[in-house]
């Protein structure tokens, strides 16, 4: 990675060098920071730092699978494994590090691995297929990553063995380690601290571990992650000075004892320290490039602050995390219930933040790091830095207080000043253009939220009204457009564009306007002229899947289905060779349908009494239910019947985003109603109505809008709530985000919906009533209309032919799509 960064920086700064790169591995440089994502579906190519043609485009001579084997410093040549000899003027070591393998008896056995390269990962993945129990030696950062990888590979029992009394001993303290440990145990990992492995048991392959305390443990495989050792063997061989415990000794200009030889990254030893993080590695590359281009720059000892997400758990440490009384004062917050531990160390005079540790919640990391690095004066309540502002003045933790030299993106070395001037002087007004221009946020990505906030702040400071317009074709917000379409009685995308917009539209405004038209008029969305203005899923009334096939989801209201209908789904799926899966919303998804087959599949489903499930549209998805009082001994009301009533009432209604609902028959909440856009829970006296919850990447619990209401009132409130949402939410905004942005929050919303503070209740209820009355199954209309039906063929000039490039592979007795076919 550092070697690649060096090439990137050098080629962008100068073209007077001829670069030759030698690599031992068969792959171009790849992202080792995110190595564990290899087991999460990322391919080796996804992890690659560059495109396959990059080196060629930069005229860099790249030799893979061909490591340097000898260096002649007198002749200034290197010889490689292939037997070739190359001249050099300057030689750069960016050889990185290898896994440190302790000398344990039996270490050579089969089933013992290190965790360092993609090849290692391939070997681990291969062996894991026959393993049930695995261990990782080393509870540091990489060890935990390796343990996560083993979980991802489906190993049933994974344990971590650490010699020290705590996890991540270089980053966090004992209390932090305990918190992390309990969270890891919750995730199914076993943690053994203070454990010293004395031997690895087994004949040819590993069967167990023995420890110095005479205990034993049976394991089928072992991953060693006990630290790193710099790859300095070549340097050593040719007489370059290395440290007593390894590492190529460099000065502030990254130069070794030979003025023409340099070292950067994890193989370099600077002031007796190996920097095993990406940011200092990139800084070393920058320093060396500057010096080669005759701009003086020197490397200073680097801040080792770090923030990472380990198995979904935030862990961060910054500044001096371990400094103790009497050299400082510490403030500690611990919440065992939520698994959060935060510690900050402040100077004895209370003025400066010296360092700290965050476990479980590291949202404040960037701000804390900046506060400590830039020596920003603390307010009198520094505890607010970790507890949040509880009224009154903020504890100095705002980006506006940062000095211009504050380093925001440490991977690419971008300061607040760089970002603000890119916004103000170079006109970068979107996150994408800002990233392109400054490179901020393109490394680990951790600073992206801060970069965005700085951008918005700078725009506001310039007096730029950040107006919420849709795109270059419509200078209106979604809300404005909603009213205008109503007022002007516009019925098609082209009419709206001609009357209210300019130019020829795009993929942002087309689906948005189409959704508004559907919300307002509820006409068949594929009416001529409107079909190509639909999002592509709406255009074909199905969800496009990897490979280009579609999925079919009929409505199963409330999750209730007769055996006869189940059989029909089974038969249809069999007939058209579809993969079937139960969805999270209590219905059945059939995947892998050819575009050409969609009309016939739906014809059969409709004949059996099914209708569209609108899984492709921004509208109501499902109303999930528990079985309720008809069967359950705890059930208070008939939750299934109410769920069906609700689902049939709101089916097909288009909204700014999809929305989901659920009805639970009692407080045990088996339908998980509080995670839905609106959720209903039975009480002794009626129903409790919750709103604005969602799952997804940022889960949020729904909030109580009204309690103990009867069914009619509940539906009335939902009518008003939905119409208010449909009329006022920004495009593609779920109800939770809509509420988060609403001034006054849930209290305001309750006032509007329950107390009718805007006087709109009657109108909204009537509007919903119209939508309910005009509902028609889109698929029924589509299969019955020859002009629409004709669109469901892949080739316009060969309507009978299906897309021949669609392929499937077999898995567990069904089919699936092959991986993305990227180069």
């Amino acid at each position, binding site marked *: 990675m550092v070697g690649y960064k060096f090439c990137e920086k050098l080629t962008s700064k100068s073209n007077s060098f001829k670069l030759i790169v030698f690599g031992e591995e068969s792959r171009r440089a790849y992202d080792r920071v995110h190595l564990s994502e290899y087991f999460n579906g990322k391919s080796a190519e996804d992890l690659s730092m560059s495109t396959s043609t990059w080196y060629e485009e930069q005229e860099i001579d790249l030799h893979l699978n061909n490591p340097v084997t000898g260096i002649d410093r007198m002749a200034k040549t290197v010889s490689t494994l292939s037997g070739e000899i190359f001249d050099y003027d300057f030689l750069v070591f960016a050889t990185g590090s290898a896994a440190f393998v302790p000398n344990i008896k039996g270490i050579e056995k089969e089933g013992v691995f290190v965790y360092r390269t993609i090849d290692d990962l391939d070997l681990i993945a291969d062996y894991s297929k026959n393993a049930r129990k695995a261990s990782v030696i080393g509870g540091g950062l990489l060890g935990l990553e390796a343990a996560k990888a083993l979980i991802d590979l489906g190993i049933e029992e994974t344990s971590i063995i650490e010699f020290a009394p705590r996890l991540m001993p270089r980053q966090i303290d004992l209390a932090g380690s305990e918190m992390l440990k309990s969270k890891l145990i919750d995730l199914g990992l076993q943690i053994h601290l203070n454990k010293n492995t004395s031997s690895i048991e087994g004949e040819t392959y590993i069967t167990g571990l023995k420890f110095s305390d005479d205990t034993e443990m049976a394991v089928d495989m072992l991953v060693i992650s006990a630290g790193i050792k710099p790859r300095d063997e070549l340097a050593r061989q040719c007489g370059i000075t290395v440290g007593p415990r390894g590492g190529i000794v460099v000065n502030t200009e990254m130069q070794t004892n030979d003025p023409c030889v340099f070292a950067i990254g994890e193989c370099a030893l600077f002031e007796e320290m190996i920097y095993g993080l990406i940011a200092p590695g990139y800084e070393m590359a920058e320093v060396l490039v500057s010096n080669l281009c005759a701009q003086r720059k020197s490397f200073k000892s680097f801040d080792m602050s770090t923030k990472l997400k380990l198995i979904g758990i935030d862990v961060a440490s910054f500044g001096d995390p371990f400094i103790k009384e009497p050299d400082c004062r510490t403030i500690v917050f611990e919440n065992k219930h939520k698994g959060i531990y935060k510690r900050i160390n402040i100077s004895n005079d209370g003025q400066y933040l010296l360092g700290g540790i965050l476990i479980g919640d590291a949202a404040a990391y960037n701000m804390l790091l900046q506060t400590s690095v830039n020596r920003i004066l603390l307010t009198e309540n520094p505890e607010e830095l970790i507890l949040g502002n509880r009224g009154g003045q903020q504890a100095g933790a705002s980006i506006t207080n940062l000095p211009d030299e504050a380093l925001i993106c440490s991977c690419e070395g971008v300061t607040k000043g760089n970002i603000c001037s890119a916004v103000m002087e170079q006109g970068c007004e979107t996150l994408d253009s800002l990233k392109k221009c400054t490179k901020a946020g393109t490394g680990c990505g951790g600073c992206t939220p801060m970069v965005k906030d700085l951008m918005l702040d700078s725009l506001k400071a310039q007096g730029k009204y950040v107006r919420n317009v849709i795109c270059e*074709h419509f200078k209106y917000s979604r809300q404005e457009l909603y009213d205008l379409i109503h007022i002007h009685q516009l019925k098609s995308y082209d009419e709206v564009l001609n009357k209210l917009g300019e130019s020829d539209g*795009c*993929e942002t405004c087309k689906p948005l306007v189409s959704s508004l038209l559907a919300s307002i008029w509820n006409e068949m969305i594929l009416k001529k002229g409107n079909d190509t203005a639909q999002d592509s*899923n709406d255009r074909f009334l199905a969800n496009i899947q990897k*490979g280009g096939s579609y999925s079919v989801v009929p409505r199963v209201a409330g999750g209730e289905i007769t055996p006869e209908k189940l059989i029909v789904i089974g038969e249809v799926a069999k007939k058209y060779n579809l993969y079937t899966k139960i969805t999270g919303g209590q219905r059945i998804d059939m995947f892998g349908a050819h575009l050409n087959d969609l009309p016939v599949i739906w014809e059969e489903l409709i004949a059996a009494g099914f209708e569209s499930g609108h899984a492709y549209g921004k509208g109501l998805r499902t109303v999930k239910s528990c079985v309720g009082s008809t069967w359950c001994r705890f059930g208070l009301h008939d939750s299934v019947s109410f769920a069906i009533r609700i689902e049939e009432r709101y089916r097909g209604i288009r909204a700014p985003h999809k929305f989901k609902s659920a009805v639970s028959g009692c407080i045990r909440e088996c339908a998980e109603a509080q995670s839905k856009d609106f959720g209903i829970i039975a009480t002794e006296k009626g129903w409790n109505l919750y709103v604005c919850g969602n799952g997804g990447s940022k889960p949020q619990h729904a909030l109580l809008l009204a309690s103990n209401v009867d069914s009619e009132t509940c539906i009335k409130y939902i009518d008003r709530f939905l119409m208010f949402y449909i009329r006022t939410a920004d495009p593609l905004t779920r109800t939770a985000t809509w509420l988060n942005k609403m001034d006054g929050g849930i209290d305001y919303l309750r006032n509007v919906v329950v107390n009718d503070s805007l006087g709109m209740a009657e109108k909204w209820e009537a509007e919903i009533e119209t939508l309910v009355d005009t509902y028609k199954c889109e698929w029924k209309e589509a299969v019955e209309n020859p002009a629409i039906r004709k669109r469901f063929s*892949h*080739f*316009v000039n060969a309507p009978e032919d299906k897309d021949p490039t*669609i392929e499937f592979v077999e898995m567990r007795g069904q089919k699936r799509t092959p991986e*993305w076919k990227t180069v």
Partner: protein
Amino acid sequence: MTETKNNWLAACRVEDAAENGGVCVKNGEEQIALFYFTRRNEWYATQNECPHKKQMALSRGMIGTLTDEPKVACPFHKKNFSLKTGECLSGDECAIKTYPVKVENGTVYIAVNR
């Protein structure tokens, strides 16, 4: 290299094309996306495969303009490509192939080199 010569492939009738959208045309093994930009009274043809994830999908994408440059957005990840030049307008994906189109007597022809 042998000289390539344009052959005009009769793709479809004008009324078979999707107004302000795309259809896919089969040319032997090759798949071509044909776009009828009715608003601008323009015709475009490009390769049907999106180079980003190698999906046969561009004909199902939405078309539109970016500062007056006609473009198509892939339905998979919304990568934008110019309909005129084939150039990728978002990110670093490689350009897509474009083909000349002509309409004669209500039939749409695409120039294919074979």
